[in-house]
């Protein structure tokens, strides 16, 4: 087994060179890695609780207003949501692969996978932009601001319920659904933007050759964060887009 730093000191031997990546308050690189990872998991546990408040709002509102979710799902295009699901799942693969590249010290692979993850996150936000701008345009927004003219209602909704008017939906309180929708997807979107920032940061660090097989905690922990963001979307997609 390894000799501890303290033993070296009592034997008055010269210590071997300390790795430059090892922070002064850790004994080994493995300890440093495990500590960072533990902290990341605690943060991710907190993230789940953070989102849980919104999922609770969803559950309560859905429990009492099933019909609202039925009408609302006509406003959301499952094809766009599905596209974003595929984009995000793919980015999870590249994120996991970037950890592998860092562990194997494959510099080129690491740069490619980090860049791909960043680009997928960007693609997700572009699709989100088109979805949001359409909703803002027709007035499918939060709370008392909700006001969609009957002419702007989704054609599939009018086909199924020919007499339906925008005013009726407004009176039912459709604004509350969209408040929940924008809070949930908005908070998730902010997480995606933060993830893009983190991947840009990792890319720069990888370019500078900061990572190696015993020092890649940042790549690993950002990937963990990215997977949690993916996991949240795995629930948001069916809950908002699919079941009506």
């Amino acid at each position, binding site marked *: 087994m390894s000799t501890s730093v303290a033993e*070296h000191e009592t034997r008055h031997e010269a210590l071997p060179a300390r790795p430059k990546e090892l922070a002064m308050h850790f004994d080994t690189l493995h300890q440093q890695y495990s500590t960072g990872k533990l902290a990341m998991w605690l943060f991710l546990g907190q993230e789940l609780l953070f989102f849980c408040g919104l999922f*609770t709002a969803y559950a309560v509102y859905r429990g009492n207003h099933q019909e609202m979710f039925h009408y609302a799902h006509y406003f959301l295009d499952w094809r766009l949501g599905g596209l974003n699901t595929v984009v995000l799942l793919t980015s999870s693969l590249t994120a*996991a692969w970037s950890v592998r590249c860092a562990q194997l010290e494959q510099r080129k692979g690491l740069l490619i996978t980090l860049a791909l993850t960043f680009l997928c996150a960007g693609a997700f936000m572009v699709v989100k932009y088109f979805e949001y701008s359409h909703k803002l345009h027709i*007035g499918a927004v939060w709370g008392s601001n909700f006001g969609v003219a009957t002419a702007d209602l989704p054609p599939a909704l009018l086909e199924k319920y020919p007499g339906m008017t925008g005013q009726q939906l407004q009176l039912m309180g459709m604004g509350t659904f969209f408040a929940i929708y924008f809070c949930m997807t908005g908070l998730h979107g902010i997480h995606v933007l933060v993830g893009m920032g983190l991947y840009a940061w990792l890319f720069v660090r990888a370019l500078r050759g900061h990572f190696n097989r015993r020092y890649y905690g940042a790549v690993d922990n950002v990937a963990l964060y990215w997977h949690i963001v993916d996991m949240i979307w795995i629930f948001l*997609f069916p809950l908002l887009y699919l079941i009506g």
Partner: protein
Amino acid sequence: MTDVPYETEHDHNVQGHDVHEPHEGLPGTIGHVSSWKSLVKVLGALLVLTVITVAVAQVDLGRMNIVGALGIACVKASIVALWFMHLRYDKRFNFWILISSLAFVAWMVGYILMDTAIYQQNITDYRKEKPLEVKPIESGSHQ
């Protein structure tokens, strides 16, 4: 093992690692290295489940729709956690952090849902007395 300090403590405190699996990686690598084939398989499984969840949602199963959608989502989330997030190979403690967090999620959603229906009548009565104010809407007025 080496007798040099600052070296890796190696895998002796990594539990759940399947020793029969071929272990890839450079000497002294920290953590479990996933093979690229396993990662691609995981993505394949997630995409197949996505197609299934979309297909199931097209059929009207009443209340079973939400059960099915959430069930598939839970399977997908577990796959992400176990393979992409390395929990299968990680220290058990990190796994329990996730589980305990989920327990509190279930507790919060469950307890709040239990009494939410009780107050619905109050809201309905209040709305009867004081209906939502509705502004006239014009097409394209929100540009």
